[in-house]
């Protein structure tokens, strides 16, 4: 993972509901959970700091009530945070005037919703063209652009249909197409696949990854499904009770969960899908002959067959082709059956 520029950063963001939330934070001190509850307030987001880098898929994962939905709404300023800063390409969103906010949202942000939020009275084409229509783009231009994105999500031929005539998966494809129509830099997806059947969900995840490989957007993706997070994320932020528990790559989460809570999620994850050779190799030069050279960033799942097939260990190399360690059959089998280490 390369360290890119930071597109979206939030610093010490709070969202507290209740009779007088700002008074709680007025002193500059950080209130604890007990004090907040005692004063009749509810803390939905408590002092969150995150940085989303350009081009990465940043997944915020949490169970219901963890504050992840409120957080993404703070990031997009759909909900006004009680305190904190949200910097989008260096500009503080919380200081943006309504007019500026409208401009930012029209051209630089897109959002996909859990229940699609399609307009029932518009056709697929009109729905997808809607954000452009709002900007005041002329009809032929916006419809051309809409057709492009509809093709991108594989819905050609359905332009004239109404949302209710489509399956759930198709509706969400419309939602995705619509959020991309205005070519945003920053793409919010709020549990986009949660309302879909498991099979469709998987297909949509693949579709999403395909689109992302093409477009390379900066993405904030919300989910309550840890497997989904692992599949899609470059980095994952785990939230609990409004607070960030851990922010890490999927591999780090699995290998070094910050606490019991995170460990409980990772316990049942097929680690071979997450862990790379680099994480299980024995450092240093191989003791004898090797069966071949494998990159450290490769996932075990993909390399397992090769390593198991050979009695000799494989050398592990870094990006610069230097041998940095070696890995043998036994280490791979340990991971596959979830034994030891970790």
């Amino acid at each position, binding site marked *: 993972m390369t360290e890119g520029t930071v597109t979206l950063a939030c610093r010490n963001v709070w969202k507290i509901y209740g009779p007088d939330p700002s008074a709680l934070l007025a002193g500059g001190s950080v209130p604890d959970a007990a004090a907040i509850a005692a004063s009749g307030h509810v803390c939905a987001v408590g002092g969150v700091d995150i940085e989303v880098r350009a081009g990465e898929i940043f997944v915020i994962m949490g169970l219901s009530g963890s504050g992840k939905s409120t957080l993404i*709404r703070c990031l*997009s300023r*759909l909900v006004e945070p009680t305190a904190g800063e949200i910097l989008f390409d260096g500009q503080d969103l919380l200081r943006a005037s309504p007019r500026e*906010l*409208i*401009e*930012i*949202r*029209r*051209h630089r*942000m*897109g*959002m996909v*919703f*859990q*229940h*699609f*939020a399609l*307009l*029932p*009275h*518009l*056709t697929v084409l009109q729905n997808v063209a*809607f*954000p452009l*229509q*709002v*900007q005041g783009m002329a009809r032929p231009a916006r419809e051309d652009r809409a057709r492009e994105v509809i093709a991108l999500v594989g819905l050609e031929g359905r*332009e*004239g*249909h*109404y*949302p*209710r*005539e489509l399956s759930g998966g198709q509706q969400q494809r419309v939602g995705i197409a619509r959020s991309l129509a*205005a070519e945003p830099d920053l793409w*919010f997806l709020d549990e986009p696949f949660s309302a879909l059947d498991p099979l469709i969900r998987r297909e949509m995840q693949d579709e999403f990854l395909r689109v992302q490989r093409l477009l390379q957007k900066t993405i904030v993706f919300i989910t309550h499904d840890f497997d989904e997070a692992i599949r899609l994320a470059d980095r994952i932020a785990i939230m609990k009770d409004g607070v960030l528990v851990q922010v890490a790559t999927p591999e780090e989460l699995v290998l070094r969960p910050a606490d019991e809570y995170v460990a409980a999620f990772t316990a049942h994850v097929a680690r071979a899908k997450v862990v790379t050779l680099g994480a299980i190799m024995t450092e240093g030069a191989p003791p004898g002959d090797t069966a071949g050279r494998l990159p450290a960033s490769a996932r075990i799942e993909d390399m397992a067959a090769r390593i198991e097939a050979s009695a000799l260990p494989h050398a592990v190399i870094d990006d610069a082709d230097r041998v940095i360690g070696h890995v043998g059959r036994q280490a791979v089998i340990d991971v596959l059956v979830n034994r030891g280490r970790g």
Partner: protein
Amino acid sequence: MTLAAPDHATASPAGPQRPGAQRWLWPVALLLTLALGWAAPLLEALPGLGWLIRVPSALVIDMQAAVRGFMDWLVNRAHFGLFTFRELTRGIAWLVDQPYQAARFVLVEGWVEGRGARAVTHFPPLSWIAITAIVTTMGWHAGGWRLAAFVGGCFLYLAVFGQWASAMVTLASIVIAVPFGVGLGLLLGVAAYLSPRFDRALRPVLDLMQTVPIFAYLVPILFLFGFGPVAALVATVIYAMPPMVRVTTLALHSVPEEIREFAAMVGCTRNQRIWRVLVPAAKPDLMVGVNQVIMLSLNMVIIASMIGAGGLGFDVLNALRRLNIGAGIEAGLAIVALAVALDRLSQAYARRSARPPTASGMSWLARNRWAPALVAVAVLSGLLGLIWPPAQSFPAEWQITTRDFWASLVRTINVNYFDQLEAFKNALLLNVMIPLRRFLLALPWVWVLALVTLAGWRLGGARLAGLCAALVMFIAMAGLWEPAMITLYLCGLSVVIAALIGIPLGVLAASGHRAGRVIGGFIDTLQTLPSFVYLIPVVMLFRVGDFAAMIAVVLYALAPAVRYTAHGLRSVPSELIEAGTVSGCTRWQMLWRIRLPMAVPEILLGINQTIMLALSMLVITALVGTRDLGQEVYIALTRADVGQGIIAGLGVAAIAIIADRLIAAGAARTRARLGLTGRGGS
């Protein structure tokens, strides 16, 4: 009409819980009331206690003069620098008149020069064939062949029974009043949605618009908007608009949160958000409001005709003045036909807007191949009408009538059964009505004030108690105590009887599909048939007086009791029914133990609506000589006394609001106890 504000349902039932005292509170209050009613004449004789029994005259203030002064100022002197208030309203009247004249041109008159025998028609209005074809096609378009046949049948009734010309006059005003009512209601509803403060200010105004009888503000409207159809249109819009405002605000609030967020995320401005996203997304709900506006506009047909709208309402009034009962019934049924046809059409369009359009992806003309055919029918029937008049207007020789049948029916009943009816009436009158009336009039006013306030406190806490007390005090201070108590007696008794008839009918309607349809048709007819039509036969059979008035009120106010009961019973969750079936309930047990108790909140809302309708009938019952608030309003109208009319109208509104708030609070409590969420009603 629905007064119940949406927040009633969610308001948590306030009021302290004291199980012991609670059980005894109302029985004790009832006993005390009975004792006081009986003893009041004795107490009144005691020195120094009179002010507790009768409203002391020192308390009564002359609000009428203030209203009169205000109205005089508004009508004659108010101005905004460049123009006076009246010039403003006259300007509005002119604006409304333009589309109205256009509608008349198309539906009624065409282009005619001269009048009466000298009239020369340059251009005919749409022929009866064309209009029937248009509405039938709309029926087909909105709801298929069945609806097309129904709507076409209704319009054929108008032609065959010789009601065409008047019906088109009425239709022309409906066609104008409804868009104005819907448009204005939509704008106000949107404004209330955007600004909670405006919403709070608007609500009591809407309550008043729905409960103050129209007669009360008819005279100022005539002053401000001039004489003729436009004033009638304005009155119709005022009366028919409030449900649209409420429905709009509610519908916008219930648009899914995600849709609202979506609007923000694509960078909609406020106007784009409202008009491009929220309003279209709320369209199916909004159509419910449109339907209400149509029905209420048709309820206004009679009163509108009194101030110049003409049409079917005028025919009804005119026929009944001549005691031509048959003609009155036929014209009345024409109003029913028009109302039911428009109602079914608008409901079908509402359902249609919630469905995906079929055959999408085709051009408009390809999807609507009937459109050119329709234009052809309209043009051809018009051209044919030039050489063969029956194609233009339905010829008199083909018309049929049932007038003699109705007249002889009433005559037969009158001649043969009057004595039996009279005996029944006398029994009820002497044993129930007159004693009740005496009792209520004898009750000390302070006790009534205390009782209503107590009810408010028990059901809704301090705020409701305060509101109730203030409204009762208003009635007392306006010097309306006696007519208000007579109103209470007449409406109260009518509502009880309507409930006794309506709830079993509702149970019956919910019991089977066919029974539901038959009863539904009966109820629709009763609600849209102008009450004047049955008021006159009722007077013939029961003489002038409270009894005739009560029958008219019961007939009119029956509908919601039936509808809400049936709806409440039908919407009991199916798991509960299944649970009952599994535990071996008989049909009766199912009804008594499961369905009725679960339907109580809904039935209470039905009773609430019944009360509202009963109160709105007061002005009509004044026409058969009651002495209640309705009569006060009516007298004020005939004397053109704005002050008296508006104050008495506010008295009616005060009673309506007390009843509405108390029952809504009671329904909310019951619902909370049953663990039901959301808001019932239709």
